[in-house]
């Protein structure tokens, strides 16, 4: 569920957001200074929910809900509650759903968080990004370091909230290795159950996109940037976090179930401006402009909008499967891939990765997730028998080197799937 409101746009952000200005709701005083655009938008959201037909009538309930932004913590909790109620009413909620919300330092107080937890939120993703005042400023964040520490304090002190995640960005302009080590130390000290580490992407049309070139000062060069990634992997692993996806770490059992849904290529609904759903095998992105989105909701209600039923080709399904699974530590399940897309393609994929299994960027594993030696991998590959009979059961990218080259490796696989 996209809640697009922010105080201001961060310099790296190219999301569809609505900047409210600095007067936007202060941490305290619920309702005070509330921007009418928020309530208007939530009404639109509720209309979309009401107009969306559940996929099946047998009532498989929602397992996870993610309020993303924007800065969802700018939205008054009663409005969040209204959306939750609507979703529950329309699709049902499972017995213990994961309900996450993104919150930015400086946009909430203990009371507001308590209220959110009160209406059913049980996971917080805190957008810290950096533990250095100058970096926060350079990013155009609407908060400073003091607010970061306050927010961490509020979240960790909140009763009834065990599960929370911290967001960090690496490769920021002028970021040094010392700064990055410091941010990771502070992160570990705050003891979140989950950490997301993003490597800064310079997007066209953003302020960063106008003034910076990737790899060129003040951005770190490729080697330094790769190093930041490796340091994060090392420090967080040492602190007991599992590196379960390219940019995600968690304490055992605290994977973000919502995101895991994406990477397992399972279906999901989406609501709100610019959000993307994957229902009945079709990926659909809603309009990114508020007016277009409102018109679209109107059409949805009128029943005059119909989904272009572009059934994905098998090739595309195979690509999705490879692209998403290779982002995770679990990797690609060769047996189920083989079942869906055939023995031959599975073999050619393994063949494509052969030199990289040898060089260690790709790891082949058996059912018990024991890594195979290269010669074992090769003999499996060369054996005449069926794939299902071989020891090899998974392929994954190694951490950190394989993950760091994931685009290269995945696009190689794409070349094999669609020659």
């Amino acid at each position, binding site marked *: 569920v996209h809640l697009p409101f922010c105080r201001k746009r961060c310099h790296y952000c190219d999301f569809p957001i609505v900047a409210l200005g600095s007067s936007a709701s202060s941490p305290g005083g619920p309702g005070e200074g509330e921007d009418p655009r928020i309530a208007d938008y939530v009404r639109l959201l509720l209309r979309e929910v009401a107009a969306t037909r559940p996929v099946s009538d047998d009532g498989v309930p929602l397992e996870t809900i993610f309020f993303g932004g924007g800065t969802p913590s700018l939205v008054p909790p009663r409005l969040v509650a209204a959306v939750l109620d609507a979703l529950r009413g329309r699709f049902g909620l499972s017995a213990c759903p994961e309900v996450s919300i993104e919150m930015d330092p400086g946009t909430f107080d203990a009371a507001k968080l308590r209220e959110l937890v009160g209406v059913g939120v049980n996971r917080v993703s805190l957008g810290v990004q950096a533990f250095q005042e100058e970096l926060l400023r350079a990013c155009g964040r609407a908060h400073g370091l003091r607010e970061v520490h306050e927010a961490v304090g509020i979240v960790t002190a909140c009763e009834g909230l065990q599960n929370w995640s911290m967001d960090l960005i690496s490769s920021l302009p002028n970021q040094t290795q010392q700064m990055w080590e410091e941010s990771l130390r502070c992160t570990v000290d705050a003891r979140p159950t989950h950490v997301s580490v993003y*490597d800064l992407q310079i997007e066209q049309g953003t302020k960063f996109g106008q003034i910076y070139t990737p790899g060129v000062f003040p951005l770190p060069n490729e080697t330094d940037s790769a190093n930041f990634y490796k340091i994060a992997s090392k420090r967080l692993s040492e602190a007991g976090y599992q590196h379960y996806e390219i940019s995600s770490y968690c304490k055992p059992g605290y994977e973000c179930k919502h995101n895991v849904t994406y990477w397992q290529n399972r279906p999901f609904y989406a609501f709100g401006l610019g959000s993307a759903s994957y229902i009945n095998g079709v990926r659909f992105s809603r309009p990114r402009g508020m007016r277009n989105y409102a018109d679209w909701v109107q059409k949805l209600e009128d029943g005059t909008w119909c989904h272009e039923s572009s059934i994905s080709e098998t090739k595309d399904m195979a690509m999705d499967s490879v*692209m998403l699974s290779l982002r995770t530590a679990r990797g690609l399940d060769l047996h189920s891939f083989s079942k869906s897309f055939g023995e031959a393609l599975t073999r050619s994929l393994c063949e494509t990765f052969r*030199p990289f299994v040898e*060089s260690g960027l790709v790891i082949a594993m058996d059912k018990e997730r024991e890594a195979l030696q290269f010669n074992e991998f090769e003999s499996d590959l060369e054996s005449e028998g069926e794939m299902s009979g071989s020891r090899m059961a998974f392929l994954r990218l190694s951490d950190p080197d394989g993950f760091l080259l994931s685009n290269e490796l995945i696009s190689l696989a794409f070349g094999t799937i669609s020659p």
Partner: protein
Amino acid sequence: GQDRLQKVPITNIRNFCIIAHIDHGKSTLADKLLEMTGTVQKRDMKQQFLDNMDLERERGITIKLQAARMRYIMNNEPYCLNLIDTPGHVDFSYEVSRSLAACEGALLVVDASQGVEAQTLANVYLALESNLEIIPVLNKIDLPGAEPDRIAQEIEEIIGLDCSNAIRCSAKEGIGIIEILDAIVTKVPPPKDTLKNPLRALIFDSYYDAYRGVIVYFRVIDGSIRKGDKICFMANKKEYVADEIGVLSPNQMEADELHAGEVGYLSASIRSVADARVGDTITHFAKRAESALPGYSEATPMVFCGLFPLEADQFEELREALGRLQLNDAALKFEPESSSAMGFGFRCGFLGLLHMEIVQERLEREYNLNLIITAPSVVYRVNCSNNETVECSNPSLLPEPGKRRSIEEPYVKIELLTPKDYIGPIMELGQERRGEFKEMNYITENRAKLTYMLPLAEMVGDFFDQLKSRSKGYASMEYSVVGYRVSDLVKLDIQINGEPVEALSTIVHKEKAYTVGRALTQKLKELIPRQMFKIPIQACIGAKVIASEALSAIRKDVLSKCYGGDISRKKKLLKKQAEGKKRMKAIGRVEVPQEAFMAVLKLEKEVL
């Protein structure tokens, strides 16, 4: 126009050609002769009637020659004048010599403001060797810079030709044309009357017509030929029936019979121009001439290169296109070749650089093919340890060092004419290209002739371009192959990640190997995208690495976020990345973009 078919006594026939440097006005003059004799009506006049290939018109040069029969009345006496056009480039000197052999005289046309150029000189010498009567013509006298007196003197000094009666003309303005026609009649000797002898006709050109097969252009030297005659090509040993014969005026006009001294065409269901090779002798099947006309020789390609289609699926189209060009170009040779870097293509042999360029251009322009062209190579002679001598034009097929005693390379004698101001830069060029300086003569006060012995391999690159740029366009050159010499040559191989790339192998002089190797490896490093592992790029002679670069591995290529909305976008990006990889060729594990090969091949042409 039927009067042009009328027979005149053999004493009234004149066969002549025009010798001129590019741009000295040969085609314009030819046009004017046709116009003035009423052979072509003014309204039908296309500019430069004789050059009928686009390429020729664009470059202002003649590649395929043509002929034209004109009727000219002088002192109430009808004359039959046959103009036989000659190609103006040294690549085709054999063809030039054969068309000269079909004539008794030649107009030497020199631009009155430019003077004699190297190429003209070479062709004049050929004409003198064939005992042609040469009529000097000073053209473009209407131009403000014209100095006919000085140029006349230059011709006398350089060629030793009496220029006291040189005709001053302006083909463009129509000045002096009648004088030229009169001079042809009065000065050029008539053909010998050998009508009684068995037929011998000299083929001086042929072309392929899609409907009629090969059309052969010939000059009857002895005897006569009739429509329907059973004829025989003496060198080729093939027999045909002359279904159609006629004259060129300049369009084909059918005739029943052609006599000794006359020039004409025939068609006889001949399938390829290779079967009607220039220089061959046509005789009667039943009444054979005792011996063929002298001067015949097979086409020997001097320059080779690999031609590969940019798109692999154009291979068959390329084969077909080459086949079609060959129907019309007996000197073009080709055979299939495959290379790991370039895929499937052809190794092609050409008479020289211009010939190569023409073929390449026609393939691209007329057949819409996109080609990758490897650096041109010459034919080396390798003296092997087992005392055999093998010819080798493809560096990748050069016998291994252990199996060869020495390599010989073709040498050319090159004559350069230049204003004296550029002698210095031109001598530098000669030096750089391993030239052996022979002599320098001042042909006039301000112009010099430099003679070098130069390896042909040094000339097949950008020598001519360099000559032009270093002399601001004023120098001209002429060369002839003089034979083979042993040289200290090595095969330079390029290895990418330890894999040799055959298409990039070259044969270079040992002293140049280091520079060339450095240039090539540096260029490749620039152009090959970094990959997931470190890639050494090396230039080697045998096992010895003489230049080396290393392409560092990519350390990071990752998009960190991939949630619901990112999936489609990310997939698009990765698909694009995968497409990029597809356009590359795999050299071992390394993906090398086509552009990298092309750039290196281009560089090879420059640095070799």
